[in-house]
């Protein structure tokens, strides 16, 4: 594994691991977002065969969208973990207002040290977050630790081929820094394997990433139209943002960037 020159582990942790709830990331992605939306979340839960009574962990649970959907539509019993205390409070509030407090609990904690017991869960999901964890090996080991033998892990995440990623896409604002620490699918596969999680299925969801890039473009345009000063404060140079987005789109077309759904099983 190579730490990226423009974004070392500490920087990544600062800009990404505080979650999608900070500065430029939130500006571009909105308060809660992952590629593919609820449709891909359902696909993920279907693929890991989530069902009534299953004990499920949602790593980087954000404001609880995935956890609550799993509890409500699949009847799962969910523990969500997020590094942002504000998100945990929001998610807990949402669970309460839906009458789901008994089946969806949210904990303040780090993906690299999950505040949950060993071998107590049937499944772990983690949506669009592994790419933001500086220490992916430890995060994977933690997922494996909380799973019972035979338990499933389901991830959706950005993949990147670092050798083919244009240099312009590695040094800019935080959201790209997250992309810049994304790995090829083989590397995710071997990280999971190293943690004792055998990958059983990989699906490409390129359209979800394309949609994400269009959304970033739309939000940039919206902020330019309504509060251009804010972009400057955040260090976003609009004359560069357009070409960078075009470059990202080209990278997706060329298969350098992609979005995948990975399912694994604990041996």
């Amino acid at each position: 594994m190579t730490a990226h020159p423009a974004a070392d582990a500490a920087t990544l942790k600062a800009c990404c691991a505080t979650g999608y709830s900070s500065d430029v990331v939130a500006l571009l992605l909105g308060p809660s977002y992952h590629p593919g939306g609820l449709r891909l979340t359902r696909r993920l839960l279907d693929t890991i065969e989530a069902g009534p009574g299953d004990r499920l962990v949602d790593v980087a649970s954000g404001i609880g969208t995935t956890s609550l959907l799993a509890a409500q539509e699949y009847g799962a019993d969910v523990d969500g973990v997020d590094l942002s205390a504000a998100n945990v409070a929001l998610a807990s509030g949402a669970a309460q207002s839906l009458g789901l407090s008994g089946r969806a609990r949210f904990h303040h904690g780090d993906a690299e040290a999950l505040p949950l017991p060993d071998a107590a869960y049937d499944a772990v999901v983690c949506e669009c977050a592994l790419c933001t964890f500086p220490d992916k090996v430890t995060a994977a080991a933690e997922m494996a630790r909380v799973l019972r033998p035979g338990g499933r892990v389901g991830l959706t995440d950005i993949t990147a081929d670092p050798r083919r990623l244009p240099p312009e896409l590695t040094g800019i604002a935080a959201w790209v820094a997250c992309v810049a620490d994304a790995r090829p699918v083989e590397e995710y596969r071997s990280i999971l394997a190293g943690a004792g999680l055998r990958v059983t299925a990989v699906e490409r969801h390129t359209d979800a990433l394309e949609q994400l890039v269009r959304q970033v473009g739309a939000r940039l345009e919206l902020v330019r139209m309504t509060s251009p000063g804010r972009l400057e404060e955040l260090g976003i140079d609009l004359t560069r943002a357009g070409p960078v987005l075009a470059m990202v789109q080209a990278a997706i077309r060329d298969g350098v960037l992609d979005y995948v759904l990975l399912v694994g099983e604990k041996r």
Partner: protein
Amino acid sequence: MTTHETAARERDEVFLELTKSICPVCKTTIDAEVNVRDDQVFLRKRCAEHGEFEARVYGDAQMYVDAQRFNKPGTRPLQTQTVVKDGCPQDCGLCPEHKQHACLGIIEVNTGCNLDCPICFADSGHQPDGYSITLEQCQTMIDAFVAAEGEPEVVMFSGGEPTIHKQILQMIDLAQASPIKAVNLNTNGIRLASDKRFVAELGKRNRPGNKVNIYLQFDGFDVETHKAIRGRDLREVKQRALDSCAEAGLTVTLVAAVEKGLNEHEVGAVVRHGLAHPAVRSVAFQPVTHSGRHVEFDPLTRLTNSDVLHAIADQLPQWFRTDDFFPVPCCAPTCRSITYLLTQGHPDDADFGLVPIPRLLQVEDYLDYVSNRVVPDYEVRHALEKLWSASAFIGTETNEQQLRQVAEALDCADSCGVNLPEALHGIEDNAFMIVVQDFLDPYTLNVRQLMKCCVEEITPDGRLIPFCAYNSVGYREQVRAQMSGVEVADVVPNATPLQPLLTPTPYGSRQVPR
């Protein structure tokens, strides 16, 4: 027993639905199949007396199938006006089996018009033997709408040409004195272009809580388009009408009838013109409805919603993709698609800004009623339902309120330091709507869609008849005959395969002599 040797074993189409339709000649209810062939959707049916008919109903089969998820459970109207006897579409209406309430009510105030367009689903024109409704009848119609809906969002005055009705302003006053929230005036713009006092009177009536929007026929910019669809070059008239509306503070929807081979190349220019003109806040595209009077057409190549969506995306690729549009879930989802934009400045400016709202939030997470048992935020769904509705007209209080609600959903004030609702202050002045609506005609009529229609013609005797049934099944002819005392022929589509059967009616449409 009749045996029949099969010519080819493999069928060349996917059988999607079995539904009901009508025979375009005798209007008898008959079974119909919906099939996918060559990536397009066709409706085929057979009348025992008049044979087989087939029409293209959606140009993009994938979009047709994908759209079905955007289908909202219906809401019953407060009151229905008929009983179920012969089954849809012969019992209008509304009958108790109708699946949806009325999002939009239409009051046709007359049959006369100051144009004689070659294309007119209402078969109107300079005709001495039509009818005009009285103020009392107008009140009856408003009362019927209010009885069915409680507080209707919007009524549309149409015709004929409603602006030539001597009492049209009083009729608008009647609507504004009722619980109906907003008024639309459907017009060719001729009176608006020449009568400033009339426009000023409309402007006076456009006030908070009682908005008046002008629904202006606007088919394109080529002389050939004007001559083929309207019979006259109306380009200057349209521009003067638009400018008068801007002066009077009236909002305008540009409404283009789009006919295959005539003006489909102009849809991008119409959107651009709308974005550039201060009065225009929305554009509506309607593939020509082959009801009433129209030029000869081939049902197998007729234009559909998906063709218009592709034309918009092809002609304005810098701004649009087809997936910026979402089906409207209150009616049948393939009937109408809408997008909203936030814009800033003039499209010719270098720093012109345009963002389709569906790129900012996951519309399908809210309006896909089949997949979503859980939605992220029910207030946002409610707002999107009101925006993606046949009752949505930009500039109305309801519409502005829902746009603000959506802006709040986009907020990231706590985290990124941009308070979007504040930044979008005045979002209602920067929002723009594009609607694409394909109405059913005697060829394309699908009872599955018709049963959920939420655009209703209000009849002078107080019935609410789904717009497409009114124009296709014979109700329009019945109402005209009843109101005018003059016999009215049953109108038949001017379709190529029917040519040997057809003769003209006195109004220019076609009939099959009995």
